């Protein structure tokens, strides 16, 4: 028995299968789930290479090759939405990550347990609000008669109300701000958890060596959570192009559309509204491919720098 097992190192024999049958059954469901919900829908990508008509169906529609991609990359509007998506993605990722780390560290420095817990609870509550509510609040507070203009006017910072949402140059920052407001508390949770796992003896040793608070943060806390930061960054980079749809869709208007529209909105507009499913799919494919490339690239860079990596 022993002998055969070691000889056929990679062959899994029947007995082994039997022993692990429950695990296998369980994983079979997940594999099936993955196939049905993640891989089968990919057949829809065929649409991008056809002049798809719902009446003719996926197999009956005429094949047109790369025409839709050609249209896509010759459309100035599409190039603009790529820029918007990418810039907003990077801006959001940078601001939310920095704010979350900063917040986690600050929260960790609070000595009073009750205060710490309450601040944490309050700060992650906005995460559970839906975007439509957040956008409603934003829309009201940023309007000419909203609270922000009210404050600015009262403190004499400006002498005329600023119509924030009518200025294209503010839009990306408003979106980034909304993201920070909504997600900082939530994102901080994971960093907080990783801070608590740092060995307290390190802090003690540092104290004995005469390190002050800032130094402790700089030399112990930050390096301690570095692996977490890198892993989260890699995972989030893949999501850069998923910068969102709701905020930009709900907050945008005609005036700022050249900076507000993202790839998702473009897909919705051409795919669903204009009924050009093929073009929408082509834009979607582009987005997925770029996302995969980004994540591979980032992973590779992390590997090179000798850091944690995802795969």
């Amino acid at each position, binding site marked *: 028995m022993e002998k055969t097992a070691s000889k056929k190192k990679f062959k899994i024999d029947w007995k082994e299968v039997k022993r692990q049958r429950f695990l296998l059954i369980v994983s079979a469901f997940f594999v099936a789930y993955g196939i049905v919900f993640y891989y089968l829908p990919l057949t829809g990508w065929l649409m991008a290479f056809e002049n798809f008509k*719902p009446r003719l169906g996926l197999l009956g529609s005429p094949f047109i090759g790369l025409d839709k991609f050609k249209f896509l990359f010759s459309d100035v509007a599409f190039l603009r939405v790529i820029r918007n998506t990418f810039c907003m993605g990077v801006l959001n990722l940078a601001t939310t990550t920095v704010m979350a780390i900063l917040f986690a560290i600050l929260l960790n420095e609070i000595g009073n347990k009750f205060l710490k817990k309450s601040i944490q609870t309050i700060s992650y509550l906005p995460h559970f609000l839906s975007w439509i509510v957040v956008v409603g609040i934003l829309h009201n507070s940023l309007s000419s008669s909203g609270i922000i203009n009210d404050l600015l006017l009262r403190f004499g910072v400006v002498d005329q109300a600023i119509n924030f949402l009518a200025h294209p140059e503010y839009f990306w920052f408003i979106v980034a701000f909304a993201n920070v407001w909504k997600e900082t508390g939530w994102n901080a949770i994971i960093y907080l958890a990783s801070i608590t796992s740092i060995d307290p003896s390190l802090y003690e040793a540092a104290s004995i060596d005469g390190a002050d608070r800032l130094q402790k943060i700089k030399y112990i806390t930050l390096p301690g959570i570095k692996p977490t930061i890198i892993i989260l960054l890699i995972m989030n980079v893949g999501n850069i192009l998923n910068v969102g749809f709701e905020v930009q869709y709900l907050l945008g208007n005609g005036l700022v559309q050249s900076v507000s529209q993202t790839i998702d909105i473009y897909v919705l507009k051409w795919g669903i509204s204009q009924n050009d499913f093929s073009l929408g799919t082509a834009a979607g494919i582009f987005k997925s491919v770029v996302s995969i490339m980004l994540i591979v690239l980032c992973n590779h860079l992390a590997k090179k720098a000798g850091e944690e990596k995802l795969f």
Partner: protein
Amino acid sequence: MKRRFISMFLVSAMAASMMMGCGSAAGNDSTGSGASGSGDAASGDVTEFSYFITMPGSEINSDNEIQQVIAEKTGVKVKETWLTGQSAEEAVGTLVAGGEYPDYLCTDDMTTLLDAGALIPLDEYIDAYPEFKNEWYTEAEWEKFRQPDGHIYWINQFENTHGDSKKTTHNDEAFWIQNKVLKWANYPKLETMDDYFDLIERYIAENPTMEDGTEYIGYTILCEDWRYFCLENAGQFLGGYPNDGSVIVNKDTMTIEDYNTSDDTIKYFKKLNEEYQKGIVDPESFTQTYDEYIAKLSTGRVLGMVDQWWDFQENVNGAFKTQGLDEAGCNYIPLGLTTEAGMDNRWHTYDDTVNCANGIAISVDCADPEKAFKFIVDTCMDQELIDLRVWGLEGVDYLVDDQGLYYRTDEMRMNAADTTYKASHLCPYSYFLSWGGTSFDGKNAMRVDEQPSEFMNGMATPLKETFDAYGVTTYPDFIGSVVEANGPWFPMYSYSNGFTTATPGGVAWTKMGECKHEWLPKVVMADDFEKGWADYMDAYNACKPEDFLSEMQAILDTFK
């Protein structure tokens, strides 16, 4: 062993719930349609149909009283669903992508549904009701609805006059102004945009705030999504053309012209730009949503705007009435302004506008199209049902005098304006075929607001005074449009609404819309109008409007 059993059980339970998860949606659906099918089998039961309309509307309660009465009489109850939070195109696109349709459908974009194979041809049903067929449309009008494949798939539900026209409202676009402003200036005659804005400026200079201290807004513009017609197309009217919507038709040469670049339009935007700099145009115009716009109008602080009557009156006039603002002179009066004084104007459409791009259709998923179609016919051919839809219950919502004329008491009028009452009691089925004009017995109006007694008595005192001061009896009289028959192509927007991106013209049309959405507000806000307009024109011409115009010309040529 026990533990193993438990894990087995959990796994199978999980698997089962997953299966259920996928299956349940379909399961529910089949029971839904099954119920409507079986309801039909046992006659006397009520069949429930669903109806999706790609317009915002107010839903009525599920235990609505008049809906129940209609259901008892016809055996049909219709659950209407309205557009919420999406644009009409998105809603239709989502339906097509999903492939499941409600029983009835109505949208501006019927061709998309037709292309997707979502609709059933109605010809044989229409032929089965000859009386209806002759009454509702003329042969030529039916032909307008015939699609390239030779079938008729939808019937427009609006703007059909029976007998004598009793039109009292201006159900179209206009420059509107609150009647108290007119009264303040002693009812002047306003003919041009200069007159209009001059009056608003003078009024605001003297009365900067309302009684409660809220500042007046001189003029606001709604630009959200498809409703940006409030900004976009006034140029065609100012030039004296009727509402072809997407283009101007030059009748003499039978050519299509582009109003986006016409001199009238340039003058219009120049004026708006000027007023924006003066602070008369609401700076929030370009970022407000429709809801915010309606809320703003409802406070009575907006003195004027361009809009279509149907786009604001229901919500705004109701709010005025409940707040007593109608007695303060807030109701809006339409004005038929033109670029130069003394020009003919065509803001008001006297004919029925047969919009063949839009209508009520029955979907392929309808379990009983025969019954569904019969209901469409019944609700517009049976005077009793029409009265129920339009007026309500006799004795409760209206009374009948000895000559057989319907009328309402003040309390009934208040009720009819009250949203809670409307939801629980009234059931207008407003997107089923609706008549204007005179009832089948020739006595009453088909619409409450067209009944002379209701129209005059329903008016607040200041509004009545304004009518008297100008010596008019109906809203269209204020406009004073030229009375003439429109060409058979009218309105051209019924064709451009059906454009898809499958043709270069359709692509151009989409891009033009996008460009205008962005640039028109910029033009109005520009510090230097000439430069702003030139930049706009660069962006506009890059959309290749000529592709769109030539396709519209080809359509017009078929009427030569």
